[in-house]
């Protein structure tokens, strides 16, 4: 995992609600058995004018100039602004990997789908929930041609923007602690090994049928 403490970056706006994980990383890229290499195919189906060809994966493709992530004004953007229910649909963590590998460090939206939100913390991608009115205002500003930069401080749970706005946000305390201190979930859980073993023994005594070898 990558820690997250503070981050300052340019915001890029994707004006869609219900951005699903199929859109973030389409299924043809889920065949990889690795954790890396997803960045170039982030939003693949709406990012390029030419469709992806599995036969010629390396082929140059023309970026769609309408798509925000392709526009010069958003070059180097690291904070993605979107509408409600971001990351709905499939549980594929590849969606988080693709965003992260493209260079996105934080997604800001009025709401997120549960599994996506959970997954994003695992790669140090910070999902920030902001009231719809605040998100609306940023969309408006950006649509009018003004770029917005935000500075995110996870420790203080505060965010300031280049327009002079100051906002607070809330992150699950456990997740915040892990991100700030670069802690790995499995490592933390294994600190409770004794408790897990103790529970497991009681559980097995109560529900022995759950512990049979799979008879395949």
């Amino acid at each position: 995992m990558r820690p997250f403490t503070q981050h300052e970056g340019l915001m890029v706006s994707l004006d869609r609600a219900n951005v699903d994980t199929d859109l973030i990383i389409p299924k043809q890229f889920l065949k990889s058995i690795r954790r890396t290499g997803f960045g170039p195919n982030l939003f693949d189906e709406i990012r390029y004018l030419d469709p992806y060809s599995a036969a010629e994966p390396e082929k140059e493709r023309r970026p769609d100039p309408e798509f925000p992530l392709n526009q010069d004004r958003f070059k180097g953007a690291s904070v993605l602004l979107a509408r409600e229910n971001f990351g709905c649909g499939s549980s594929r963590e590849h969606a988080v990997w693709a965003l992260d590998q493209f260079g996105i460090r934080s997604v800001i939206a009025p709401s997120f789908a549960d599994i996506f939100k959970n997954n994003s913390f695992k790669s140090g991608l910070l999902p920030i929930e902001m009231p719809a009115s605040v998100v609306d205002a940023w969309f408006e500003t950006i649509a009018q041609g003004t770029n917005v930069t935000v500075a995110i401080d996870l420790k203080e749970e505060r965010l300031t923007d280049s327009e002079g706005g100051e906002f607070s946000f809330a992150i699950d305390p456990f997740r915040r602690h892990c991100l700030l201190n670069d802690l790995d979930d499995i490592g933390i859980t294994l600190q409770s090994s004794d408790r897990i073993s103790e529970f497991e023994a009681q559980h097995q005594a109560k529900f022995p049928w759950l512990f049979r070898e799979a008879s395949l």
Partner: protein
Amino acid sequence: MAKTLYDKLWDSHLVEQREDGSALLYIDRHLLHEVTSPQAFEGLDLASRAPHRISANIAVPDHNVSTDPAERAMPGYSGVDDATSRLQLETLDTNCDRFGIPLIDLADNRQGIVHVMGPEQGATLPGMTIVCGDSHTATHGAFGSLAHGIGTSEVEHVLATQCLLTRKMKNFRIRIEGEVAAGVTAKDLALAVIGQIGTAGATGCALEFAGSAVRDLSMEGRMTLCNMAIEAGARVGMVAVDEKTLEYVAGRPMAPTGDEWDRALAFWNTLYSDPGAHFDVDIELDATVIKPHVTWGTSPEMVVSINDSVPTLDANASESQRKGYERALEYMGLRGGEPISSIAVDMVFIGSCTNARIEDMRAAAEVVKGRKKAANVERALVVPGSGLVKRQAEEEGLDQIFINAGLEWRSPGCSMCLAMNADRLEPGKRCASTSNRNFEGRQGAGGRTHLVSPAMAAAAAIAGHFVNPAQLEAVS
């Protein structure tokens, strides 16, 4: 204190509750498939960790497999054309082999979509906690179990620790009361629920389906309903245990027997929400007014009944809603006001973990029996959910009914539900599909998906356009 079903399942698996709200939940069953597991196994390797409890795990390949019977007859994975798919399938085999995880391989007649295989084998039992690196794991909640879809890092976490690191969700109950009209299926109930509460309606909640219409459903129907809980935003969907649950489970290969069965029953019979238990959200739907449903847009909440038309935009819609609506219509190649029954389809897909069980096969066969596929329907794929469903259907002669009607009878797998294999929609083509997601590109880049029940998909194959199966006679 009165507890909900979710409270009971949570409490009986809670290993550790921490002050910050996070908790460790013990996991009884972990289902694995080829797409979301390789990076988890790699993670175990890198940290020199081993799976905590082998017997909790079962793996099966499903997402990438070919469903062409001729290709499936070829040895091993040689029938899988695409080298990257083949590597992913082989990687599952290798990982299972190395870590000692039980695998139902492609040659095994029990192979199938992970959410069809689990219940069939009794790997899914009431009162269990079940996880799988797949969002439709909610399916298994039909058995009064607590089933979460998880991401790959969580797959690794569960492998290493046998626990899910999570926090308690809210309790949300939907009671669907009354008797449904003839021809209204579990799929229609699911779509009606999503149409009502929206795709984010149950985000952060464990969703219990209750009420007489839910009790009236078969186990297959309850699985269809719970399967789509995620399409309403809920990670978890559940139905309380009753006689039907027990009847389904009894005699399954991995179900308890003898004394253990009796002990299990004593626990399973407590798996319902107590009267007076607190629900954060509790709503009721009238089953009697629900009609067969068809989605018209690019989100499962964009749904209307078969007698309706593609909706026109609400006058009070916000700018963002207007954009979403227009984008969906443009993508789908439709106009507001167009009657659903006038929409012609190019393809039909009957399959997926939502609707590929024997009951679904029967419902579709009943509609196409003695009829012929419409000429404008290029292909109609029927993909059973597992080898066992396939065999059962063949014993009942359903395969011949499909073939005689001009539909294709395939081998089990996820197939055109997400089109990772060769079964996919070409750009601009329109499909009546029994799967669960109509997102842009879900069934193939540029493909247009309409979600329907198996009977509706079968009726569309015959009529060439959407039609209420009950009115098919008049059309053909």
